């Protein structure tokens, strides 16, 4: 029997909510921990199944999606969407190619070039790991001395941190926006308020509903046309009445967004994913 398989390596509230939503819709569903299995030429699911890949490690999630896709299995989101979203430089390049407004960004490969790039943007600016989440290892750099220290430290952290991704700091007030797109259509959004410049709800930001007006919906549809994918979580800033796309996430966490928006996000996701199963 065709089954919706939700893959995970660490079971979060989101994966349990997705399974509950599937059960409510009478969708055959299995939560599958893929931590301790190995991958060869034989798929661990059937070609009639559809897979919702929710491994907490971006690299492992993308890898398992690639393997399953090579075996003819439909995976949501696709590995190509994961690759775009999982690397902030790749996301920025895609958004820029589509002419979508975003904070200005620079990239460099040595600490010295990173300082020059940052001074081209102007202080303050934000240095982010190209791959990372939950506001981890973000640095707001206010002056040259801080820049020298941050970039020297980053240069010692391993190859991934030697691609220096630097973003213009946006004076966004005390909030940013997290919006959800399911199957290309914006379904809801929250504002995340915090006194800290990092507003992630994983870091204590307070969530409230944001009404999706035509301007935001249009922007979100443009993001989806650029990135693709069945489920995206998009972070937006507003500066001078203009929306900027900050980040696009392919494995969005939504537990804190259901209550304020009154939107059953997991129900929408599993419905969209189930409809993608092979005919």
């Amino acid at each position, binding site marked *: 029997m065709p089954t919706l398989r939700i893959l995970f*390596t660490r079971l979060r509230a989101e994966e349990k909510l997705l399974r509950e939503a599937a059960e409510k819709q009478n969708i055959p569903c299995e939560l599958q921990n893929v931590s301790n299995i190995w991958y060869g030429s034989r798929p661990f699911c059937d070609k009639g199944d559809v897979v919702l890949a929710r491994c907490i490690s971006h690299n492992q999630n993308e890898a398992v999606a690639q393997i399953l896709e090579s075996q003819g299995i439909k995976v949501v989101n696709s590995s190509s969407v994961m690759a775009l979203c999982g690397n902030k430089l790749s996301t920025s390049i895609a958004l820029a190619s589509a002419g979508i407004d975003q904070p200005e960004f620079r990239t460099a490969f040595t600490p010295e070039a990173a300082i020059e790039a940052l001074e081209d943007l102007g202080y303050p600016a934000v240095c982010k790991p190209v791959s990372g989440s939950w506001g981890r290892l973000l640095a707001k750099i206010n002056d040259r001395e801080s820049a020298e220290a941050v970039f020297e430290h980053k240069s010692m952290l391993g190859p991934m941190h030697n691609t220096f991704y630097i973003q213009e700091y946006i004076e966004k007030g005390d909030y940013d926006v997290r919006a959800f797109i399911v199957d290309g259509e914006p379904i809801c959004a929250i504002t995340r308020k915090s006194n800290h410049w990092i507003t992630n709800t994983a870091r204590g930001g307070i969530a409230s509903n944001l009404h999706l007006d035509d301007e935001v919906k249009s922007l979100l549809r443009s993001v989806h046309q650029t990135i693709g994918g069945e489920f995206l979580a998009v972070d937006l800033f507003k500066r001078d009445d203009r929306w900027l796309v900050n980040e696009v996430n392919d494995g969005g966490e939504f537990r804190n967004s259901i209550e304020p928006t009154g939107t059953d996000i997991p129900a929408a996701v599993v419905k969209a994913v189930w409809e993608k199963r092979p005919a």
Partner: protein
Amino acid sequence: MTATCTICEAKVDLPNDCCEGELLVCGDCGTELEVIALDPITIEEAPQVQEDWGE
């Protein structure tokens, strides 16, 4: 269902719908624990957050 914290040996309650991979927090010592198996119930200290974890 209960398990024993691997760090401080306190009893830790498991939810009725507990799954493999689920995370628990020990009420006594605060350690984050992961359910490794259900039959028999086996828990271990949860792994530390890795660099590429998240959304």
